[in-house]
């Protein structure tokens, strides 16, 4: 049976047309998003691993190496089994830092242009044989089906169609931020076609060729050498080598990296891929041995690589042959499309842009330039693969070409493992190792392929002559290249010191911790960023990138900002831009662009403050993504933060530049300054008087400042200040420290303390007065008697007059002594002598008593009191209070003036105001009048004990007395006492 060449061409065109339709449907929303982003589609798309080598070459490799061919897939299973340690961290790095290829990943970790350049160049050379393998497989399959040599023109047509597809569906977006959903679905579809084709071929081999499973087993019993050949290679070195090569290829080959990490929509999909992708590979390989044995039993005259096609032709099933042919086409085209796409990212980011970005014209559209560059690179890579296909001698079988690329890819394994687990590794070590390994790889595997006389077989002979009998060329080349690579990598790393940038990147790679920027952003506004980026990216791209970053951070867009961004926001903007530009231009150019033109300040004292703020902001926004220990630590952080926030002491933490970091609730209450405002400011920028207070205290050498009186808008306040230096985190001792300042509002405490001191003073004076009165009273009585007798007994006028004077002075002393005794007897009432007292009656009695004095007779008492002003008090003491107050008022009142007495109840307090219209009391003496022995009266007119006594009595009754400062003439005493009803209610 023969299939016409044109038929095969039309079938290929039709099939690729279907692929276009599927990709277009996914990209344009015809296919539901749920399906497009389903984990199974993602896992199936990873089937790009199975190329034409798998599809056709597995049968050949199984024939040559028995069960060892399965290690190519068992190694992948091992890589996915270790996915939580291997794949998940790389996926995190890839999405967090927008790393679009393995070259970007290594350049991010090891820094510098040289890393990306070397890795890209090496992979480019390493993958070319693999691309040529795909072209070769397609042309050979046509040769088998059409029974004629496929012209190179046909291979060229296949390459052109692949370029068109790769450009249309793989190079539509500039950055990996936008996933190529259409491409992913198309590749998943191709994987399904490959699987279907091989399963059908396997079923045909079993049922149609052998007549069923039993017959096949019967054939095996008749040919026991087949089973022996199948199991024999397990004991050879090839088994281990292929396992290792496949393990590395599972995520290091550019196409695998691209589909696994760059096109991943949802990290959770990887959990499904861990098992579904190996299952896919298992099903794909299940029919390989039946097909091989069917080919042998049929005695096919084609290379075992193409037994699957030969068998289909042999059984005369044209549709099966076409299906298998399309399966092979799927395998080849999928590999070429994804590989060239991945390599185009690498070439653009690591080869082209570092050289050309500085020459970019600000007027050009960078996006278009990048897009077209990428398209040209895709075409160039496929053209190079086609050139390689034309040049090399294809006498090695499909597997050999594939394995050459596998050995190339494994050279990246030390670097990637070091990236994940070894922070000491350096760029010098990586480059040395890579160059050493690559040299061995080139010498042993590529050079023989390129020269006319040599081949891999000749290398095998060379190895045999060197004494490595029985060891295959793949094991020797893998062992030698990896040994040289690892040795140079380790020694090179240990002999050099990692730069600070490498150390930071290393920390970011080995832990989930977010990487803070090592410095402060110099720019002060987003527009400043745009202006500076314009020079490199062009106006349009610069504006779009800055606006995109602002939108992702929920910050106002360019042109709508009223204020410059605060330092923390600028820092976040810088980080976001670096991340986004890394996806657009690669990490090397992104760093060069941002850190070269938008300098950061030295990573010294400012960094800690801003790092903490930026880190805190990011923690707040990424809480949903936290899990496990990270979440527990963040919960602890929030708890401690709440403790600090709710502390009933004002807490203000400042950084080395006096930036306010913490401003808790109590601090807001004390200062009246909002937390948001405070945290945007430095100490000196806070509203007065807090700027001066805190700045002065922060700068002083004192650790504590007690009872600082400050005039605030709501009156005079008293504060205690305490401060302490805050140490930097242990791993960043180079940063200077900040301070934490505690502010304690002592106003109320001070008031209570002064009242207590006043009461104490009164009590002391009372005790003293009682003693003096007692001691003076007795001799005074004697003096009065003697003076009186002297007057009676003498007739002399002078003596009588002197006696009278003595008695007058004695009476005066007596009055003072009585006052002292009265004051001294005002001991705290126990409360059982209290009864409901109507204050109106107390006032009336007091007025009657006061009116007995001469002065009071010439004064009018204007009493306005509401009824029912009942207090629970000692009636006598209440009269005494008002007598003293009214007496004082009378003393300072002029003849004919008025003394006003007002009484009213306000809620649960009764207030009595006694006002005179005398000369008044100076404001500074308002408090002193309640101190004992202070008097404004002339000498001999007052003892200074009346008002202190009133003060004591009122306080004892739970009330207070004060001077109303609002009156402009005279004095107004205000006595407040709790109403009896309130006290009774409370007692009840």
């Amino acid at each position, binding site marked *: 049976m023969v299939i016409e060449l044109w038929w095969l061409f039309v079938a290929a065109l039709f099939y690729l047309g279907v692929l276009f339709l599927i990709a277009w449907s996914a990209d344009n929303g015809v296919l539901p998003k749920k399906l497009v982003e389903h984990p199974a589609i993602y896992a199936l798309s990873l089937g790009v691993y199975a190329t034409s080598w798998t599809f056709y070459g597995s049968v050949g490799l199984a024939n040559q190496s028995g069960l060892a061919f399965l290690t190519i897939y068992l190694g992948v299973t091992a890589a996915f*089994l*270790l996915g939580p340690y291997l794949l998940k961290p790389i996926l995190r790095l890839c999405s967090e830092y927008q790393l679009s290829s393995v070259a970007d990943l290594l350049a991010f970790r090891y820094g510098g242009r040289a890393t990306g350049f070397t890795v890209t160049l090496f992979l480019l050379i390493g993958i070319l044989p693999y691309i040529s393998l795909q072209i070769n497989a397609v042309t050979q399959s046509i040769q088998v089906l059409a029974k004629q040599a496929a012209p190179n023109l046909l291979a060229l047509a296949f390459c052109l169609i692949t370029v068109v597809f790769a450009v249309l569906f793989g190079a539509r977006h500039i950055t990996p931020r936008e996933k190529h959903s259409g491409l992913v679905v198309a590749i998943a579809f191709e994987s399904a076609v490959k699987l279907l084709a091989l399963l059908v071929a396997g079923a045909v081999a079993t049922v149609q060729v052998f007549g069923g499973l039993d017959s096949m087993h019967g054939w095996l019993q008749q040919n026991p050498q087949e089973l022996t050949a199948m199991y024999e290679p397990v004991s050879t070195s090839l088994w*281990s080598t292929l396992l290792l090569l496949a393990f590395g290829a599972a995520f290091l080959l550019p196409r695998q990296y691209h589909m696994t990490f760059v096109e991943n929509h949802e990290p959770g999909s990887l959990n499904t891929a861990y098992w579904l992708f190996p299952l896919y590979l298992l099903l794909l390989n299940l029919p390989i041995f039946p097909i091989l044995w069917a080919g042998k039993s049929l005695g096919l005259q084609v290379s075992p690589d193409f037994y699957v096609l030969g068998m289909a032709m042999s059984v005369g099933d044209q549709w099966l042959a076409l299906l298998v042919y399309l399966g092979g086409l799927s395998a080849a085209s999928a590999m070429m499309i994804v590989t060239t796409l991945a390599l185009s990212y690498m070439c653009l980011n690591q080869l082209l842009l570092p050289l050309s970005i500085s020459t970019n014209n600000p007027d050009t559209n960078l996006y278009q330039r990048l897009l077209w560059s990428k398209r040209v690179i895709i075409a160039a890579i496929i053209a190079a693969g086609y050139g390689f296909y034309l040049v090399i001698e294809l006498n090695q079988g499909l597997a050999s070409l594939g394995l050459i690329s596998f050995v190339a890819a494994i050279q990246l394994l030390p670097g990637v493992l070091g990236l994940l687990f070894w922070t000491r590794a350096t760029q010098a070590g990586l480059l040395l190792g890579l160059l050493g390994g690559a040299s061995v790889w080139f010498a042993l595997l590529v050079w023989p392929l390129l020269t006319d006389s040599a081949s891999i077989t000749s290398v095998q002979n060379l190895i045999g002559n060197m004494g490595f009998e029985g060891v295959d060329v793949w094991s020797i080349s893998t062992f030698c290249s990896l040994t040289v690579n690892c040795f140079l990598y380790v020694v090179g790393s240990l002999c050099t010191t990692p730069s600070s940038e490498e150390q930071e990147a290393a920390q970011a790679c080995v832990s989930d911790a977010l990487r803070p920027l090592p410095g402060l952003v110099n720019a002060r506004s987003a527009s400043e960023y745009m202006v500076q980026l314009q020079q490199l990216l062009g106006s349009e791209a610069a504006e779009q990138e800055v606006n995109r970053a602002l939108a992702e951070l929920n910050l106002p867009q360019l042109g709508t900002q009223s204020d410059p961004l605060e330092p923390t926001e600028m820092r976040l903007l810088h980080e976001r831009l670096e991340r986004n530009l890394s996806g657009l231009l690669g990490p090397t150019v992104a760093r060069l662009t941002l850190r070269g033109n938008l300098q950061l300040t030295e990573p010294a004292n400012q960094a800690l403050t801003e790092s903490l703020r930026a880190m805190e902001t990011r923690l707040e926004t990424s809480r949903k993504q936290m899990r*496990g220990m990270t979440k527990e630590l963040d919960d602890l952080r929030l708890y401690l933060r709440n403790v600090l926030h709710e502390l009933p002491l004002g807490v203000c933490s400042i950084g080395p530049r006096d930036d306010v970091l913490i401003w808790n609730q109590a601090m807001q209450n004390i200062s009246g300054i909002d937390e948001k405002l405070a945290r945007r400011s430095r100490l000196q920028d806070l509203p007065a008087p807090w700027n001066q207070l805190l700045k002065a205290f922060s700068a002083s050498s004192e650790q504590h400042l007690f009872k600082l009186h400050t005039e605030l808008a709501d009156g005079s306040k008293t504060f205690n200040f305490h401060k302490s230096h805050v140490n930097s985190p242990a791993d960043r001792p180079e940063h200077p420290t900040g301070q934490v300042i505690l502010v304690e509002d002592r106003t109320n405490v001070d008031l209570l303390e002064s009242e207590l001191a006043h009461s104490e003073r009164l009590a002391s004076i009372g005790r003293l007065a009682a003693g003096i009165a007692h001691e003076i009273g007795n001799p005074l009585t004697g003096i009065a008697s003697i003076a009186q007798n002297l007057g009676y007994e003498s007739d002399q006028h002078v003596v009588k007059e002197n006696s009278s004077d003595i008695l007058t002075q004695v009476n005066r002393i007596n009055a003072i002594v009585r006052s002292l005794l009265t004051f001294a007897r005002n001991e705290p009432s126990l409360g059982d002598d209290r009864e409901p007292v109507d204050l109106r009656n107390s006032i009336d009695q007091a007025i009657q008593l006061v009116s007995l004095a001469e002065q009071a007779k010439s004064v009018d008492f204007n009493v306005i009191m509401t009824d029912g002003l009942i207090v629970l008090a000692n009636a006598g003491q209440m009269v005494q209070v008002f007598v003293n107050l009214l007496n004082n008022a009378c003393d300072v009142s002029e003849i004919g003036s008025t003394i006003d007495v007002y009484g009213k109840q306000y809620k649960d307090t009764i207030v009595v105001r006694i006002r005179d219209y005398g000369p008044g009391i100076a404001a500074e003496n308002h408090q002193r009048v309640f101190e004992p022995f202070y008097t404004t009266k002339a000498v001999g007119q007052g003892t200074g004990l009346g008002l202190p006594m009133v003060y004591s009595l009122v306080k004892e009754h739970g009330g207070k007395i004060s001077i109303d400062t609002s009156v402009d003439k005279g004095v107004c005493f205000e006595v407040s006492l709790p109403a009896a009803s309130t006290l009774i209610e409370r007692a009840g």
Partner: protein
Amino acid sequence: MRRTTDLTLLITLAALFIFHSPFTQWWTGLGLPWYTVFVLWLLVIVLIAINAHGGGRRSGD
């Protein structure tokens, strides 16, 4: 998460034991049916699936 880690290590050890140890040479020399290797491979895949889904639920994925 810790249980997932333990299971991953256990499955890795089991896979190594089956596919890359002297035991591999032993069982491949027993003349077992050709599909034995696929059955063992499937067993490992089932274990990975159980581990991945159990771990996913526990870690909130």
